């Protein structure tokens, strides 16, 4: 066994839960150090005598480790040995040490030991009083960007990696009967009880092992070290199938209806990169029938001058480092306390063989088990006194102590100075009520414990242990047991046998309400007395805020930044409120508290994103012919989640070349489009026809079987939101098509009207979008091509425009619709999707002689624009009704039922004469293509602001017409045929166009009637 303690100057020879046989090497700020398995990064740094772990946010003062858990405000690290594995904002107190760990301070600029910024602090910090954001940096506004980068650097919130994280973060949905937050004595007792009763239990704890406060205490349970009881409970719990134990797991959010989010560190606690295939972090999304909060309490430090010097720590943290990690973070200790409990720290320090200079107790006559124990050890106790100031430059070297009055707010004697390198303080314990606040419960002040406890809640929530202000182990265990029994009763489960372990009998005297130690100078002149270390909020700052008229604690918080950001007021909030209350001459409950938001500690973006990244970021939907498109070099366009073929460039073709070729081939011979993505809805029932009449603006009563019809769908406001062709398959049976992007919305639209407005109509809707593969062959040779693949008569006589017929195409039963979105003779072939690719390939087999050309969505857009056909969502934007589109032919105002949209499109505003109307736009220079979105003006020389009369919605180069074609809105445009309109562009050009019919090609429709 090699014990390399040589450089770990503060490491004790024995004791603690670390494994001295397993040394670990880590790098901190570029230097190598040693620690042991079981250490946190914080305990290892302290073992190595590293005092300064950061520079403060505003004043750039040196800061050391003050706590041992989630409440640590200073030791916030950037962890990661490679660029890709950087994690910012890691608390050193929560990071398990592993071999090869690389950490650096995040708020040192440029380095923590000698900080160029510290002149700000030395000038007395007057440059950055509270409210400095508002007062200084807002003016002049133009300087904000300069200030921002300066503040960002100074604030040191770490940095995101520049390379993508190689690790896997995922999410898991969990359900349980009882969710226990915290595996200290209360949580373990509750968990054991619930598990024995057969409940489904999840128990989570932020630390790497269960046990909570017991891990760092010297007390016994059942006359054995508490650690043995913990081991027994953990072993029993792990035997239950329905118990999920989550160490290294922070319950970060408690949301409505007992939904909790837990960030589990799976491997990132132990390795820079997750071993192959393993998950680095997992976000558990838990739905719990009952929640037991056993989150414990954080010890409050006291507020005194220079209380941020390294060496100033929270009392219990000192005990934790001693007892759990075998680290004495100094040599000569002064303990300042307002209660008995903290005496344990002096006892532990003494028992570790170190020197306790004095216990400074603000109370006149302390008594109790721990006080007596201190006296027995001969430790000097200064009663009725407080430490008013710490001295030192980079570490505490001495402290000033003064006698205080009964209430602790006036110095009543002379100041003495004592040498010490460590100053531990305790102002009592603040229950960790953060999670209970997340669901909106207001905390309640409890005078007995001088802290806030969880308020009334609408959640199925129970609490146990120190969160309730219950601090004695005996009572904490009892509360764990009884909370579990309450939960079990609610769940209808029987109570199991559960004996409470026997705990030490401890008597504690009454604590004193003490938060802010007075100084010989007024607060504003005294050395800085920090309340919130992380945000550099001082007692003087809070007093200033109160003097400046901020009376609500919420305003004081925002003005001073107390409890902001990642800190969430874990250490400082109560002290800050007490100081504000005193200034405002109120009690703390009268002053109120701010409440806490999720998340309790910072969560990595990896955990939030989970697997919804990279290829899995969003579903990609494919048609049955997708592989063919890929094989034939298609470029794809996203339409909703669909990947649609956009165009098919050949060899070195530019996009425009490909489009020209596709357009010409289609109009000259035959082209083919994969239209499978169009929404398709099967509609059946005797009232199907009536229903169609209500949801479409046009008439459906007389559409015969075998026929198709185009329809416009409007909202109740009369505005068009979708369109498509619906075919009558049989008297009570229709097939509706929708736009690709509108399919889901249209189906819900039909359902909501059927379910909530017209349930008496006998009709059912079923999506068949995915069931049918749809391929449209279009062009003068499309019939000849189809004839090669079917025996059915598809002549003009047998199958007229807007007819549909069942037939067999390429051996596959098909439904073929003679409808056209190009203005050419077209057939839309629908086959069961498992045969889509087969039929598609057969079409190419037989289509070679006609130069069958695949075309994508872009050519489809051009071909339809040549014909003036609209695309809902491109030529409509939710503010245009059918008349605006010049589509009065698609509105049947005389239908007996007042169809959806009818009333809306007759509102006063909808019948104005100068509404924007969709028209064709013919550029005077045929070679110029208008940019879509360009705004038109009638007089380009008019003074600014020039009245804008409407924008271009669709605009393309038409290879068929050898000129540009465009559509757009123009105010009163349908009455302005032949008039000029101008499009001034950002680059200074003004494009002149003539307002015309949107039908550029074949206005009589002769091409499709063949």
């Amino acid at each position, binding site marked *: 066994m090699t014990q390399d303690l040589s450089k770990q100057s503060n490491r004790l020879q024995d004791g603690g839960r670390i494994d001295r046989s397993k040394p670990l090497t880590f790098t901190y700020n570029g230097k190598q150090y040693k620690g042991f398995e079981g250490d946190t990064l914080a305990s290892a740094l302290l073992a190595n005598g590293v005092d300064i772990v950061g520079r403060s946010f505003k004043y750039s003062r040196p800061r050391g480790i003050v706590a041992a858990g989630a409440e640590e405000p200073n030791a916030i690290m950037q962890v990661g040995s490679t660029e890709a594995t950087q994690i910012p904002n890691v608390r050193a107190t929560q990071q398990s040490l592993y071999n090869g760990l690389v950490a650096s301070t995040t708020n040192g600029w440029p380095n923590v030991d000698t900080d160029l910024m510290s002149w700000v602090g030395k000038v007395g910090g007057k440059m950055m009083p509270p409210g400095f954001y508002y007062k200084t940096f807002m003016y002049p506004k133009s300087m904000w960007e300069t200030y921002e980068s300066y503040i960002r650097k100074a604030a040191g919130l770490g940095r995101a990696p520049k390379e993508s994280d190689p690790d896997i973060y995922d999410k898991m*949905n969990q359900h349980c009967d009882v969710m226990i937050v915290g595996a200290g004595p209360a949580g373990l007792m509750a968990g054991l009880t619930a598990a024995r009763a057969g409940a489904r239990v999840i128990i989570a704890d932020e630390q790497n092992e269960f046990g909570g406060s017991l891990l760092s205490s010297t007390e016994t349970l059942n006359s054995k070290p508490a650690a043995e009881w913990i081991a027994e409970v953990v072993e029993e719990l792990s035997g239950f199938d329905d118990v999920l134990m989550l160490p290294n797991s922070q319950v970060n959010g408690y*949301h*409505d*209806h*007992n*939904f909790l989010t837990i960030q589990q560190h799976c491997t990132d606690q132990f390795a820079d990169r997750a071993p192959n295939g393993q998950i680095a972090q997992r976000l558990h*999304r838990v*739905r719990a029938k009952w929640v037991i909060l056993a989150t414990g309490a954080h010890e409050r430090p006291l507020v005194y001058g220079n209380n941020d010097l390294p060496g100033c720590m929270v009392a219990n943290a000192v005990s934790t480092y001693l007892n759990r990690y075998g680290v004495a973070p100094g040599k000569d200790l002064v303990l300042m306390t307002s209660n008995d409990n903290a005496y344990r720290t002096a006892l532990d320090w003494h028992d570790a063989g170190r020197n306790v200079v004095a216990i400074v107790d603000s109370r006149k006559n302390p008594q109790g088990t721990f006080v007596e124990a201190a006296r027995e050890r001969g430790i000097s106790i200064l009663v009725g006194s407080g430490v008013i100031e710490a001295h030192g430059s980079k570490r505490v070297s001495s402290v000033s102590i003064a006698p205080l009055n009964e209430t602790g707010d006036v110095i009543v004697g002379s100041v003495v100075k004592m040498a010490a390198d460590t100053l531990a303080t305790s102002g009592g314990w603040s229950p960790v009520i953060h999670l209970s606040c997340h669901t*909106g419960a207001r905390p309640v002040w409890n005078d007995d414990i001088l802290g806030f406890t969880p308020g009334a809640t*609408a959640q199925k929530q129970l609490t146990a242990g120190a969160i309730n202000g219950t601090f004695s182990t005996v009572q904490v265990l009892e509360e764990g047991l009884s909370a579990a029994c309450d939960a079990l009763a609610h769940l209808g489960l029987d109570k199991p046998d559960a004996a409470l372990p026997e705990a030490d009998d401890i008597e504690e005297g009454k604590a004193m309400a003490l938060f802010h130690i007075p100084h010989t100078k007024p607060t504003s002149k005294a050395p800085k007395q920090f309340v919130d270390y992380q945000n550099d909020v001082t007692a003087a700052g809070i007093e200033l805020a109160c003097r400046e008229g901020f009376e609500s604690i919420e305003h004081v918080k925002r003005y001073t930044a107390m409890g902001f950001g990642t800190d969430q007021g874990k250490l400082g909030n109560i002290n800050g409120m007490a100081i504000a209350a005193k200034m405002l001459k109120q009690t703390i409950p009268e002053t109120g508290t701010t409440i806490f938001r999720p998340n309790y500690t910072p969560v990595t973006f990896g955990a939030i994103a989970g697997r919804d990244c990279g290829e899995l970021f969003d579903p990609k939907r494919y048609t049955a012919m997708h592989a063919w498109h890929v094989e034939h070099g298609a470029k794809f366009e996203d339409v909703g989640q669909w990947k649609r073929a956009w165009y098919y460039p050949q060899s070195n073709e530019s996009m425009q070349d490909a489009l020209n070729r596709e357009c010409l081939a289609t109009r000259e011979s035959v082209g083919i489009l994969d239209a499978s993505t169009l929404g398709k809805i099967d509609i059946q029932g005797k009232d199907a026809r009536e229903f169609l009449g209500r949801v479409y603006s046009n008439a459906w009563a007389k559409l015969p079987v075998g026929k198709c019809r185009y329809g416009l769908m409007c909202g*109740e*406001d009369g505005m068009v939101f979708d369109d498509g062709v619906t075919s009558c398959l049989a008297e009570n049976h229709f097939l509706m098509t929708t736009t690709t992007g509108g399919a889901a919305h249209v189906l*819900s639209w039909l*359902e*909501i009207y059927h*379910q*909530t*407005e017209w*349930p008496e109509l006998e009709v059912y809707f079923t999506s068949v979008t995915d069931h049918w593969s749809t391929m449209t062959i279009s062009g003068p040779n499309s019939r000849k091509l189809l004839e090669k693949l079917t025996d059915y008569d598809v002549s003009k006589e047998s199958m007229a425009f807007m007819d549909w017929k069942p037939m067999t195409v390429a051996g596959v039963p098909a439904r073929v619709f003679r409808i056209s979105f190009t203005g050419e003779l077209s057939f839309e072939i629908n086959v069961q999707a498992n045969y889509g690719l087969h039929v598609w390939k057969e079409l190419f087999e037989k289509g070679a002689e006609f130069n069958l050309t695949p075309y994508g969505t872009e050519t489809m857009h051009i071909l339809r624009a040549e014909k003036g056909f609209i695309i809902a969502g491109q030529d409509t934007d939710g503010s245009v009704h059918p008349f605006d589109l010049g589509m009065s032919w698609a509105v049947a105002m005389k239908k007996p039922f*007042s169809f959806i949209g*009818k*009333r*809306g499109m007759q*509102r*006063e505003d909808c019948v104005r004469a100068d509404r924007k109307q969709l028209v064709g736009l013919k550029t005077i220079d045929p070679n110029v293509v208008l940019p879509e979105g360009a705004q038109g003006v009638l007089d380009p020389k008019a003074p600014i602001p020039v009245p804008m009369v409407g924008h271009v919605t669709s605009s393309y180069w038409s290879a068929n017409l050898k000129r540009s074609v465009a559509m757009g809105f123009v105010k009163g445009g349908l009455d302005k045929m032949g008039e000029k309109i101008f499009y001034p562009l950002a680059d200074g050009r003004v494009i002149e166009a003539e307002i015309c019919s949107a039908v550029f090609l074949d206005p009589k429709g002769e091409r499709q009637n063949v």
Partner: protein
Amino acid sequence: MFHIYCPHCCEYREEEEFHASGQAHISRPLDPDACTDKEWGEFMYFRANPRGIHHELWVHGAGCRKYFNITRHTQTYEILEVYKVGEKPSIVANEAK
């Protein structure tokens, strides 16, 4: 994240299966053509925003695709009742002021 009892599936499901569809009990006027512009505007656009008890229309979109009503407390987010379309809520806000 709400936990919502679907009255059609007869069990609680996660909120992500559902979709809120606005205020409940907004009936389409039976004779829209007889409505004034103001009446039609009120039907279309004006909705309650109460502090306290509110009735909402939801749909179990990823589940049974059925619409149903929820009575929800807008401060505590408690769902006090769910009931099917066409049914009346048994819990309503106290209108007395």
